[in-house]
């Protein structure tokens, strides 16, 4: 057995570091061991289980849950090719096939020389560089016609990407300064929000955020001020601040850009939230695929600590707050807040039943405020500039700006910060307009909805979209022209959800698979009217009965495509699927 040849000596220092934290340190310990040995062999896992006092079956369950943990040896370099709906539009499945052909392997296999393992993965958050891949830790954009030899053997790191703001409130000097340097950040007004925060009582901060009308930017649009108030009033200590940086919604890459380009603004936002809520501990949970963002955030955290913006007695005010970075390991569902808590606690990322809500019983069962990256950046800006200034843009129900992620068939894909309340057409124009003839726009991501070519005057605000049964979600605007294969896009949407369902509740566990099978038939041109009735029933059951947002939203995009353009399924007309 290969595993018996392993030298477990190196594991000793890993175990010494993580054992005192027990199960809560399971994911960091597994990551450290895997980085050391390349994979998680049985003897290594047994040693981790003993040291951290976690039942072995439970650790096995954790390894099996997260796609980035391997229990078998893998290639020296893992080539992860994105087959999400966005990259699929730009030929990533064909690229996957040609790479596998080149190496003479199947997806998930390692080359005979042990150098490369090739995997098909879901969205890598590089949608502005589609088709994209991760070669080891290097994010790359695969240029048309590039041979596998060129982009895999000497990967060219993708830059931060195209950024534009009108105004640049949250983006600030993102992309223009050394991101982790405190001096650079201070030079463009950084930490003014935290200073103003610490000069006032926590109630003032909560009032200011409430006044600003800020709604959560992760997708659910919950009023941030109200969330902070609930967390501050909740019984129980300690309280936690969690930043949800598990950005995995296909089409979304704004949080990656903010982390890689403006990390100190996120740290400042977490410190502001902590002060408002009365917390001294924060966790920044970043998806495992964002390796570059993780290392930039680590550097920024160290610099913030060294300059007195984090740690004990921040800016001599007596306020203590520090942040631990946690890496996900390949699970979309961990972007669901309670699944994220489970993951930090060293478990499979199963969403919890609600109530209780996180502000009452969140991480480790304690009152927890969990906010998206962009939400925290907005809080930073609001505390520096005031609630009234934030309200000066946007609409009555949707104050301020939104950082949109534009991808697909547009002239300049990238991240755009724009006032809420402008139209879909205006947003697309900002990015240089549609390339080719517009077929549709996927708004809000895989869990979003399709808009048609006649919907360009849709008002992009939380309330404006909700009125028309759309969701702003995380701010995805994915433009699709008539050259794209809609059936293939819908298939990859279904594939995404089937791959990412956690398997906890029956409707999502079974429904995402059945939905995928129906979309498979659609691609093969074998769809019948009865299949479409089944598709509607499956979508209905998932939406009405799933435990968390993953299952509840798993069918919205596909069913909206059917409603907007029934011809995508190759059938004559739409019909209502009453049995």
């Amino acid at each position, binding site marked *: 057995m290969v595993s018996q040849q392993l030298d477990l000596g190196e594991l000793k220092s890993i175990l010494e570091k993580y054992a005192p934290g027990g199960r809560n340190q399971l994911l960091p310990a597994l990551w450290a061991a895997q980085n050391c040995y390349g994979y998680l062999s049985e003897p290594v896992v047994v040693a981790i289980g003993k040291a951290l006092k976690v039942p072995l079956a*439970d650790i096995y369950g954790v390894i099996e849950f997260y796609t980035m943990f391997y229990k078998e040896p893998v290639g020296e370099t893992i080539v992860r090719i994105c087959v999400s709906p966005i990259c699929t539009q730009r030929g990533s499945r064909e690229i996957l096939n040609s790479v596998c052909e080149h190496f003479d392997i199947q997806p998930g296999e390692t080359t005979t020389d042990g150098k490369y393992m090739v995997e098909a993965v879901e969205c890598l958050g590089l949608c502005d560089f589609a088709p994209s891949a991760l070669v080891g830790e290097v994010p790359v954009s695969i240029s048309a016609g590039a041979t596998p030899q060129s982009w895999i053997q000497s990967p060219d790191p993708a830059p931060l990407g195209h950024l534009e703001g009108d105004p640049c409130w949250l983006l600030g000097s993102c992309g223009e300064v050394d991101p982790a340097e405190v001096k650079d950040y201070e030079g463009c007004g950084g930490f003014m929000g935290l200073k103003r925060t610490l000069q006032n009582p926590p109630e003032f901060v909560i009032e200011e955020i409430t006044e600003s009308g800020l709604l959560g930017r992760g997708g659910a649009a919950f009023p941030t001020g109200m969330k902070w108030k609930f967390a501050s009033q909740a019984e129980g200590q300690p309280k936690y601040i969690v930043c949800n940086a598990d950005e995995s919604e296909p089409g979304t890459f704004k949080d990656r850009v903010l982390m890689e380009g403006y990390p100190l603004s996120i740290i400042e936002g977490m410190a502001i939230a902590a002060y408002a809520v009365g917390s001294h501990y924060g966790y920044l949970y970043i998806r495992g695929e964002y390796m570059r963002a993780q290392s930039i955030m680590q550097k920024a955290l160290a610099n913030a600590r060294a300059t007195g913006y984090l740690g004990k007695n921040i800016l001599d005010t007596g306020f203590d707050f520090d942040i631990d970075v946690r890496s996900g390991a390949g699970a979309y569902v961990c972007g669901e807040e309670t699944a994220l808590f489970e993951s930090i606690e060293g478990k499979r990322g199963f969403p919890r039943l609600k109530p209780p809500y996180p502000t009452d019983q969140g991480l480790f069962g304690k009152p927890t405020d969990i906010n998206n990256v962009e939400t925290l950046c907005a809080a930073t800006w609001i505390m520096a500039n005031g609630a009234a200034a934030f309200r000066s843009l946007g609409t009555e129900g949707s104050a301020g700006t939104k950082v949109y992620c534009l991808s697909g068939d547009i002239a300049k894909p990238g991240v755009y910060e724009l006032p809420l309340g402008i139209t879909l057409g205006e947003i697309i124009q900002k990015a240089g307009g549609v390339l080719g003839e517009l077929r549709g726009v996927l708004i809000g991501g895989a869990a979003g909805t399709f808009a048609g070519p006649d919907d360009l005057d849709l008002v992009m605000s939380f309330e404006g979209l909700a009125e028309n049964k759309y969701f702003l979600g995380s701010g995805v605007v994915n433009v699709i022209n008539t050259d794209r294969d809609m059936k293939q896009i819908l298939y990859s949407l279904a594939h995404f959800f089937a791959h990412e369902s956690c398997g906890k509740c029956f409707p999502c566990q079974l429904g995402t698979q059945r939905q995928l099978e129906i979309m498979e038939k659609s691609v093969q041109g074998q769809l019948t009217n009865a299949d479409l009735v*089944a598709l509607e029933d499956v979508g209905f059951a998932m939406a009405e*009965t799933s435990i968390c947002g993953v299952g509840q939203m798993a069918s919205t995009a596909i069913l909206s495509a059917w409603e907007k353009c029934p011809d995508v399924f190759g059938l004559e007309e739409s019909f209502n699927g009453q049995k």
Partner: protein
Amino acid sequence: MSEEYVQLTIDGTPISVPTGTTLLDAAKDVDVDVPVICYFAHTTANGLCRLCVVEVEGARMLQAACVTTVQEDSVVHTRSPKVERARRTILEMLVSTVDISESPELQELVVDYECYPERFEGGKKRQPAIIDDNPVYLRDYSQCVMCWRCVQVCADDAQFSYALNFSGRGFDTQIATFFDKPLPETTCVFCGNCIGVCPTGALKAKREHLIEQGVAPEKVMEFTRLKGKKKKSHNSAG
């Protein structure tokens, strides 16, 4: 502590139950039968199967009766068209995935809800091979509905043995031991709790299985004893 009561209406019948009562228990009080698969009175309710969903007027979506507590003035419908459609679809998806030939309660539900699982014909099924790795019981996960009860009683809900957890994810989730090892090589103490709580034929006592296979009851011991001795020399069997 004096109990406080909540007034609500279930299928048109007004009732009053103590605060904190689940909709499932409240329905029992008015003799309304709400179907469940994963729910079991002696294990922590996880609300997995969603078959017990009911329609609560004003709620954003259907509510799982086993984990939703009563609210003042709620108007609850346990068999509205929406409820029927959701339950029927979940059952159809389940039955087209799992072998329910030894699960009479599920078979009854399929009839009751006029299910047509054939609409998913050709879809993926869960059909792992039977695991026969110990003298006490068999594991036939092609009959497993993923109710989690066995994992729960093996862990904090009863035995604290922690021999069972999961492999895979999503549709491909399965109950598993550490690195899929045979049970005798795990922390399993053969308490039998998991067999007791299994709602289908997925976990079955070896004795029962052998008798079904035509082995005379007085001969059963010969088979299980033999297996028990074999265990030591054939650790990786199964």
